[in-house]
């Protein structure tokens, strides 16, 4: 194992945030069956693949050096998948949120879903940001031969 660079740690944080975001996404879908996410299995699958890709992005530079193509593609895909998951969370809750801030402010279950959704989106979005920042940085400190 080579000495890890900053990208490794950023990707690591993104991985943790991704797990948290995915758990919150699933949780937000289970709180109220009326606000369940329509395509939850797809979202879970997308999220899990994204997490695997982040791991790939963390591990591959140890074998192939900094900024290797495989980890680059993996991170790119992970960003897209993180975005897909939080995008769906937002998209499917737009009407709920609009209602909460107007005629339906008494919807306690809806507020719960809203807050969890905010958490999920925040985790995944910040995770994606970390992945972007990590893309500019080195994953390993040793210079490849």
């Amino acid at each position: 194992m080579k000495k890890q660079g900053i990208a490794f740690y950023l990707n690591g944080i993104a991985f943790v945030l991704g797990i948290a975001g995915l758990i919150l996404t699933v949780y937000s879908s289970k709180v109220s069956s009326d606000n369940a996410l329509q395509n939850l299995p797809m979202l879970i699958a997308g999220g899990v693949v994204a997490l695997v890709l982040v791991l790939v992005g963390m591990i591959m530079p140890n074998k192939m050096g900094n900024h290797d193509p495989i980890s680059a593609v993996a991170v790119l895909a992970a960003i897209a998948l993180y975005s897909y998951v939080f995008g769906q969370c937002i998209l499917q809750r737009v009407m709920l949120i609009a209602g909460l801030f107007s005629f339906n402010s008494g919807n306690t279950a809806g507020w719960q879903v809203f807050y969890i959704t905010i958490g999920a989106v925040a985790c995944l979005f910040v995770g994606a940001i970390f992945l972007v920042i990590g893309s500019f940085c080195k994953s390993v400190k040793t210079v490849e031969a």
Partner: protein
Amino acid sequence: MKKAAMKKALWRGLSSAMCLTLSFSIILGIVLEANAAAIDTYLGTTSQLLSSENNEENPLYDKFTPPAELLNEDGTGNSTALIQAAIDLGRREAAEGAVLLKNENNTLPLASGSNVTLLGIRSHVPLIGSSFGVKAQGPFINLEQALSQNKTDFANTITTTVNTNATSREVATEVSKTMSSWTGEEFDFEGAGFNVNPTMVEIYDKLNETYKHANNENPEEVYNANEPSIADIEGVNAGYKDSFVQYGDAAIVVVGRPSAESKDFLPGGVGEGSEGATEPLQLTTNEMDAINLAKEVSDKVIVLVNSATAVEIGDLKNDPDVDAILWIGFPGNYGMLGIADILCGRVSPSGGLFDIFPTYNMSAPAMQNMGKMYYTNTDELITRSGGVLGFTPGSYVIEAEGIYVGYRYYETRYYDAVAGNGNATSPVGAYASTEEWNYANEVAYGFGFGLSYTTFAFEMQGEPIFDITVDEETGAPNAYATFNVKVTNTGSVAGKTPVQIYGQAPYIAGGVEKSAIQLLNFEKSNVLQPGESEVVSVKVDLQYIASYDENYDNGDGTTGTYIMDPGMYYFAVGNGAHDALNNIMVAQGMDQTKMVGTGNAAAVYSKEINEDFIAKTLFSVSKTGYEISNQLPYSDWNYYQPGEVTYLTRTDWAGTFPKTYDNMTLTNQELIDNLNGKTYTLQTTDDTSEVLWGQDNGIQFYEMYGVSYDDPKWQQLLDQLTLEEAMYIFSFGGPSIPGAESIGTVETYMTENAGNGVAVALNASKDPNAPWAIPTSDVNGNWHPQVFGNAPLAASSFYPELMNELGQFTGIESLFTGINILWGPGLNTHRHAYNGRNGEYYSEDPVLSGVAAMEFAIGALDYGLVAAPKHFAFNDQESERGGVSPYMTEQRAREVELRAYQIAFEATKYDTEDFNAGMRGLMTSFSKIGSIECTTSYGLMTEILVNEWGFIGYAVTDIYDDTDLWNAVLNAGTTCFDTRGQSGFYTSTTLAGCSLFQKQVDGSKLSTDLLQGDLNLQLKLKEAVHKNIYAWSVSHLMNRYNATTHVENPITWWRAAYYGLTGVSAVVMLLSAGMYVMACTKKKEEM
């Protein structure tokens, strides 16, 4: 090497960053497109534009036009004239609707030039609208200005609203303006000519920095009136009393209570800001202190009651130092001018109370059962969820008061108390005494009551003219009595007055329940000079004195219908229900020493009605010729679980006064199944080949203007629709409504709220091509048309012409804003004073409510606006409004709540031999009727609404309501769903892709294939779509359509922004990725 690595890092990082922005822009784009209609409304952009050639062969905008006086010479809109007309109408609405309740020693009117002091924080921050629903929007004229100034200061008086705290959801804390600024014109007006004490104005202005009252507020379950204390006033200016010397001609105190949708007041619900009150509608210590302070200011103390509901003012009535009380409702943006007109005597008040004002609202039998009640075994038995709006399953309310709602209770019990019947004087149900029930103690001001600056005498002129016939073919009755009432101004100033005709049907102990008095119809006199008389004709539909006997055996296997028990019927004119009843009681020779008030037999007409005159079952057939029988058996709890509820009866007031049914347990399986939404079974194997879809008959929508509903041409048009198009039209009923290529319609934003004006700003018209559309560059472009007073104020005018005019003006507003269907006005009857939404509904009386709504809707239709009254039906409380089950007798349902709708929908006043007038829209209720959702009640939506009343038109659900019962909603006769927020149909919003409809209670999901095997639902779908499109065809939507109509999609700035972001992100990402690959390749080569 290092440089190359840095390049790689740069390109890789940039690719990732652009990947994120690309993903983000795609998400943004999808969100924006799916909600494009709503976004356009809020941003004032236009995503879709109907485009048509306008020439002699294909004319446009020739069917409905605003009045010439609101247009410039070139036909463009004149915003100045429009706003001036709104100011004038709003002023008249308040002047006609405000109700003078007390005026000792002719305290009012005040002389011009009077120096007056305004007290109470509501004098500075009056309630003029609701925080949600019928909000008063934009610049307004304050009370201080109306009393003392002559020009608007719109730039500095913009209405404010209270916003609910987004985190706590309980306490309203934030106040904001309803529009950011007004840079349009200012308008001259004639004020009252008073001088207003500036010291108190400044003090209240300062105090409101901390009290944060607003012009649009909402009730709270724990309500805080938050009137500043005397100490607070002293804290701002200790020497404030010094100003009283100069401004002591009169003291005007304003007290108020808010109204808005979504929340009720609740019994005992008072917080720290309501110290001294035990109920939310009682006056608090600080409010009483303000009134007592007024007594220090002047010997003329005037109280203005600024409410939409009955505030408990019995103490003020009996206080000799309170000289005058004027109820002013929520007068809207310009109504303070009308109030000023009354205070200065320019206009003599002529309103009558919309509801009875008891001394204690809790004394109403309805108050025994309201608020939040839940079945004890909800968790075990109710499987249906609360829907996407998160409503709480398992809530109910038992309306054990039966027909005795509002004045019907107090006046009927009063009658029986005087007559010595039914234990009426028992203390059971009394709140003012532990000894006995006494009308004088229990009631402050009666329904329909109102004073004037003059006095009037009423006298029946001869026999009424009866017009009673029966259609030989259908048996449909036509039974009217026209009463000619001589009204004489017996006072010393000019004035006008409502002419209210009431009736009493003979009550037989143990028989069908009957109110001792009920309003039958009303008109209003002209302004009469002192000594002048006028004969006012009031035409009464005798159906409304018939009673619904739900146990009547119709002899055909059905039970329940309207009956006219033989006996003596009394008709009386009076200043309100109590006065009319007193007149009848005198005519009946009852003991006047026991009466509260006096009566006049000359104001009464009595008639023995028997089979020879009116058959007992004359009204068992509706005006459409449909035989009437019970349609809502499931409305009654006892239908399922007999004997568990006792309804109030005149036979024994004490023994049947409602108890609180707050612990009901579900045991009946049918009841449980109904509550779980199991009311329709989707068929999958029917032969549906007889239902034609996708035919090519060559007819386009624009050709349907003026085509009657039953014309065969409609069937041809409907057959052109594909099944999928019809399903879209049924599923998405507004505000954006999908187009249908087969008949030449395009997606259009058609509908909006509310009842006090159209909720779209003038410069955000949905019909920007209209010649009169106000451009964004217009100086008054951001004027918002929601400016009129609340519904009770309009009702209290007792003035059908004004009600019609309000509808007409709203129709004109709709032409300027391009909205052709209005979700309003509110038409539920007031069950009790604690309903938070009373301000949106007219009255506790169905005739007053029904006439007001009918006039409004007929007036609106003159300008091509389909008014869709809401909420059909039984929105009796806001607490758990989503799906609450109100249980009641069918008699109660029909004689109170439904009668209001019946009057409006039948609109017989406007029928002619050639034209069957009627309203063309409604919105259903969130509430159930008994155990069944109103939206899925076939009895309500088809048997009563369509078959009995002949309703033809757009019947939309409330927002997202019952989307899990798509099949049952269609089966019942509801014609579409309110799916606010959805747009982009067939693309981003599809039947199968719309999450609203993907969780049906029967396990199915909406898709284009859903109805393939259900013949009944395909037929119902065609009927529903027919009604929707017919409603469009009678609206000013037809202004925009001709043979050349097509849709254009302008690029809005927000669309351009996300397109740009997407494009730039994609390009940069690809370039970066390419550069990264090249950097990798170069490195390899170097190696």
